[in-house]
């Protein structure tokens, strides 16, 4: 992990009373490599390392404090700062109608996460809407997920425009005493103009309170471009990082926070519908540093 890697470079800082451009060069390089190996986007890594450098230069090495530990402490703190303060749950209240659209690339975990969030809020009577008309048996999957989560679902087969289905789902939610509307959409490439425009139309028709971008935590360098395009097109309100129960370092989380600045609300930690947790910025920062 980073502290081990920094051991030899940092030991050279012992006895110095000031951190200078020269003596932290190697340490900064170690941070750069650690973040790249954790899949943080290259441009974000460069920005981060520069900001660390600015902060560290001229810093007095506190008497009695191991300069290496001080350096790592600073890196960790800076990461946590970027990761965001403790996240807010989505703002669901009984009696209101909170509308959520789930979006993201193919296979990231949208349908499963839709079920997880619904299960978490099952006491406000959620309604799940099956708006993926493309993937074989996607509607089936969403209906089964709803059943397993103990919540209601709405579907209109696969021969209708997903926006029409969403609108009808909204009407059903209003009429049926549901306080949470979760719209599951088909996975799509952020460069697919037609499908991105479909989401924009859906947003226009539904006026959601939340648009959650569901991202696989093992995503590599491309996380930035994906997040940016979804955000530019739709205005993402929050992110869910999935498959965090794996051992990917999760650098995509840092890239996304830095790029679109939206809160990471939840992490998916398993395939079952109870596998959802609130995002913990401290734990994610430690994981990324390795």
């Amino acid at each position, binding site marked *: 992990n980073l502290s081990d890697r920094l051991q030899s470079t940092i030991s050279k800082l012992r006895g110095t009373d000031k951190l200078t451009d020269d003596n932290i060069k190697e340490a900064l390089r170690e941070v750069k*490599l650690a973040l*790249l*190996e*954790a*899949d943080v*986007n*290259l441009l974000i890594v460069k920005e981060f390392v520069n900001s660390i450098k600015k902060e560290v230069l001229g810093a007095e090495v506190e008497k009695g404090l191991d300069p290496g530990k001080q350096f790592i402490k600073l890196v960790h703190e800076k990461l946590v700062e970027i990761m965001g303060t403790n996240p807010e749950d989505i703002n669901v209240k009984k009696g209101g109608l909170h509308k959520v659209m789930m979006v993201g*690339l*193919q*296979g*990231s*975990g949208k*349908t499963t996460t839709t*079920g997880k969030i619904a299960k978490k809020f099952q006491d406000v009577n959620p309604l799940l809407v099956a708006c993926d008309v*493309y*993937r*074989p*048996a*996607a509607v*089936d*999957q*969403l209906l*089964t*997920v709803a059943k*397993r989560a103990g919540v209601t679902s709405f579907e209109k087969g696969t021969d209708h425009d997903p926006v029409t289905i969403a609108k009808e789902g909204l009407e059903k939610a209003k009429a049926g005493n549901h306080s949470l509307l979760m719209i599951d959409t088909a996975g799509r*490439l*952020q*460069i697919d103009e037609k499908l991105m425009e479909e989401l924009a139309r859906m947003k226009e028709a539904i006026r959601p309170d939340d648009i959650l971008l569901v991202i*696989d935590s*093992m*995503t*590599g*360098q*491309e996380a930035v*471009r*994906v997040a940016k395009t979804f955000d530019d097109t739709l205005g993402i309100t929050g992110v869910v990082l999935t*498959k965090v*129960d*794996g*051992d*990917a*370092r999760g*650098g*995509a989380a840092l890239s996304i926070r830095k790029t679109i600045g939206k809160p990471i609300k939840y992490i998916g930690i398993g*395939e079952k519908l109870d596998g959802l947790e609130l995002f913990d910025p401290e734990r994610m920062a430690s994981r990324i540093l390795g």
Partner: protein
Amino acid sequence: VFGDGKLDEDKLEEFEDLLLQGDLGVEVTMELVDHLRQGWKDGKYKTVADIQESLKTKIQEELTLKISPLNLSESPFAVILMVGINGVGKTTTTAKITSLFQKLDKKCMLVACDTFRAGAVKQLETWGERLDVTVVKGKENEDPASVAFEGIKRAKQEKVDILIIDTAGRLHTQVNLMEEVKKISRVVEKALPGAPHETLMVIDSTTGQNAIEQAKVFNEALDLSGLVVTKLDGTAKGGVVVAIHRQLQIPIRFIGVGEQVNDLQNFNPEEFTEALFA
């Protein structure tokens, strides 16, 4: 992409950045760039074009394995086992490969060994209907190994040419699930010695460095015969396969370039390398 021109340290850094952003990873990138820097210092490379050429050649060589073609004419039939982590495209790729073999006049049969995930069997059955192939399935939550066994039995009865077994997504860190997929493979081998003739791991091209660890664990468990890299119709370059190739020498059989049944191509090292620099 870099125009032509004098070589300098900045230009080298531009190449380094390109490789890193393509998900080639720190180790592979540094090694490639060090080689370029050495060639530059030795006077072997003089211009940016020289560097680009050398880089393309090296990467392409890295990805070219003398591989035997897919084992398709096994007797009584060939068995292909599809594995990989969650959501990478195993089920869709199973359908694509089936369609490819049908065009070669092979009779195919599919086995739905994902007995756990919501809608998984339905998804494969839908593909089966579209392609007019039999899909062998079990009961919900049945032991996937027993469904695989049933698949072999049915394939023998119906004299198929190729049996493709689709399995549930699983993280390489889930020990019990890795044991489960090993068991599927063992049961298949017992039911038909020599099978599975191909064990293909499907990898999502948007994955970062974790794909290396995934491939290592799956390879250790199952002795993979090939990889399929999916979603290359997106903006990710899939550069992590260079490291996988280097460390594990597993041939890349196919790439997925879309969600339709025809969106499968044979892996072409030259095209893949060109795309890295596009």
